[in-house]
């Protein structure tokens, strides 16, 4: 067991039944080297204030439910360690740009709608049945989308994106990255439907390439790249339709 030290955790608190606006409370949390920010929050809940509310599940950076802001940086609390902040105090807040339901819990329903809007599943060219057998891909074809497929819907990228904060119409990083993920899949034929989302003002054109989304993504999905590459595609699509008024081949 490593030695125990004490860190100050300043936490945003908001109770919709009592508070008009959020406020902050500071807790003294004893911690050891292997304790994550999430475990710090759990310590508060178990020993100092049972009313503190936050989401978590896997504790291993894969479920995507424990995202929050630490000192204005969006992070997965299960993947960030208290020792890396000590001796400074830390300020924990719910993910930026989302409505707060209670304490560190945000309402992600807006994102879920956006996720749905990008047709986030394979659309085969012809309907397939089990008799058609497996849908084969080469390693190279997998490589084309595998990076984008790592998204765990943790929403750190939305919390990093001021354009989403300023305009909630913007489809946003993760949804647009998943859009690119399915478009890049050789088994998919749904590009046409998704292109309408890409081409819209709320699609890729809501992005001004701040770029922080890609930096904070714990799975290196690189949504900024997915979005900005689709700006080129959208521009081509915009001008090519004048050349080929009867619809494009692919």
């Amino acid at each position: 067991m490593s030695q125990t030290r004490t860190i100050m955790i300043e936490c945003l608190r908001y109770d919709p039944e009592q508070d008009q606006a959020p406020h902050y409370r500071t807790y003294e949390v004893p911690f050891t080297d292997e304790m994550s920010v999430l475990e710090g929050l759990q310590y508060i809940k178990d020993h100092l204030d049972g009313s503190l509310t936050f989401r978590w599940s896997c504790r291993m950076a894969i479920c995507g439910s424990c995202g929050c802001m630490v000192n204005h940086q969006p992070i997965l609390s299960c993947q960030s360690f208290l020792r890396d902040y000590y001796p400074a105090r830390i300020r924990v807040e719910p993910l930026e740009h989302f409505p707060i339901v209670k304490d560190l819990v945000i309402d992600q329903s807006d994102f879920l709608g956006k996720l749905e809007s990008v047709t986030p599943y394979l659309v085969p060219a012809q309907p397939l049945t089990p008799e058609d057998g497996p849908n084969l891909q080469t390693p190279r074809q997998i490589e084309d989308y595998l990076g984008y497929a790592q998204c765990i819907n943790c929403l750190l990228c939305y919390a990093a994106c001021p354009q989403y904060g300023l305009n909630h119409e913007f489809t946003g990083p993760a949804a647009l990255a998943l859009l690119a993920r399915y478009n890049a899949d050789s088994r998919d034929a749904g590009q046409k439907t998704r292109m309408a989302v890409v081409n819209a003002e709320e699609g890729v054109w809501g992005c001004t390439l701040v770029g922080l989304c890609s930096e904070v993504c714990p799975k290196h999905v690189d949504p900024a790249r997915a979005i900005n590459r689709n700006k080129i595609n959208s521009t081509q699509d915009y001008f090519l339709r004048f050349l080929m008024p009867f619809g494009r081949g692919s």
Partner: protein
Amino acid sequence: MTPAPKTYVRPMNRWWMRHPAYRRYLLREGTSVMVAAYALFLLAGMVCLVLGETAFNLWRGFLQSPVSVIFHLAALAAFAFHAWTWFKVMPLTTPPIRFRGQPVPDRMIFRAALWAWGIASVALLVLAMRFL
């Protein structure tokens, strides 16, 4: 269905204070003010050139003044920062490039762009020394 809970939406005022990346972003976008200003400055030069020798000499004389030197040093910084940041994010926009089957890493694209910057600058200087 349960009624939607009352939620709290945080304001966006002074959002750029929240992260250094936001201030770097605004600085990058801010270079465009200088780019536009410099275009207007060149446009003014063009107007003077059309108006005739006396008018043009005023513009040409201004180049010699300390105000102009300060303006140009600021413009120089803005253009250089613009170029650096432009090339830095360029790999995000370019379609995936492969060389011998391997994806070309971002830093190679960035380095190639820096070379292009250098070559274009030298070419412009050579042309200017020949024709101005």
